[in-house]
């Protein structure tokens, strides 16, 4: 296999670990609302979006209208717009079709790994690397959400393994690599605090995107000192 794809797959192991418990949980929840394993697989293959899938299923179960489900999913997933924008400068020489394909699989988790590589190990980053990261998450998600739907009743206390903390820990590890200056640290903390506040308001579904845009806008320009270790 191509060495970039292989490296992408290797680097994606926290995603694989983290998607297992969340995928199972999603499959179990979906099955309990009356969606068949095939329906679960279809949702995972077509949407491939963690929180949006949970919302879709709970809205389906509460018999929300198709229009309101689709509108909500649009809002919740709109943050990918920012990730896709942040990726753009690293793909100047790639063709339309490969970018259109690659972007189908953008998630918070693959973005966290991909953007780190692009920024600080750019010589190891290209579309094949990102594809490796993305597809390994995609297959893990499809497989484990379906298993959850099929075998949900046999899987009980999977929280005991602590795997559900793999993704938060991965975000911490990747943020620690990304944050190089005092300003970076301020961006992280301000955006985090603003998101928490927005979560308690009617803007909850927009919290990540609003706080990311506002904080990034507010900090354009000005000095940027290295963080002392």
């Amino acid at each position: 296999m191509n060495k970039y794809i292989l490296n992408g797959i290797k680097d994606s192991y926290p995603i694989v670990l983290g998607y297992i418990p969340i995928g199972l949980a999603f499959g179990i929840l979906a099955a309990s609302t009356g969606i068949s394993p095939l329906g679960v697989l279809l949702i995972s293959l077509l949407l491939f979006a963690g929180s949006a899938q949970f919302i879709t299923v709970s809205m389906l179960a509460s018999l929300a209208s198709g229009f309101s489900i689709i509108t909500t999913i649009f809002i919740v997933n709109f943050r990918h717009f920012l990730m896709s924008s942040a990726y753009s400068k690293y793909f100047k020489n790639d063709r339309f079709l490969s970018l259109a394909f690659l972007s189908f699989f953008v998630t918070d988790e693959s973005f966290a790994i991909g953007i780190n590589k692009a920024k600080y190990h750019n010589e190891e980053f290209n579309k094949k690397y990102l594809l490796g990261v993305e597809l390994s998450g995609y297959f893990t998600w499809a497989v484990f959400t379906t298993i959850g739907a099929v075998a949900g009743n046999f899987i009980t206390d999977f929280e005991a393994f602590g795997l559900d903390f793999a993704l938060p820990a991965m975000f911490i590890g990747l943020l620690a690599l990304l944050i190089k200056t005092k300003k970076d640290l301020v961006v992280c903390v301000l955006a985090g605090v603003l998101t928490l506040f927005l979560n308690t308001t009617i803007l909850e579904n927009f919290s990540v995107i609003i706080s990311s845009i506002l904080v990034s806008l507010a900090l354009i320009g000005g000095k940027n000192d290295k963080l002392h270790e």
Partner: protein
Amino acid sequence: MINYMNDTTFIIIILGAMVVTYIPRMLPLVLLSKSKLPKKVEEFLDYIPIAILGSILFSTLIYRNDSIDLSIDNEYLIAGILTVIVAKFVKRVDVIVIFGIIITIVLRFIF
């Protein structure tokens, strides 16, 4: 595929959700990768990864069960703080992820 709705309706809703998810994923990458952006926009986009990941992390660790939970009973918050301390000294994602998983198991064992 779903027992309280006909399958066609179900598939149409999922396809609709797919389209509105895919467009924001795809358009910026496809369009912006071919354009020269002003310096200010580039600087803005440079902050976006940290801002988004910080937002998601704070939300995951602190916003639990639909409210802000800063109590000692919030195991995600405690595990998160301990993991951040380790991440300050160890700049390796693999070590940090393993530490995070183990500390979560330990916390659940204790509490």
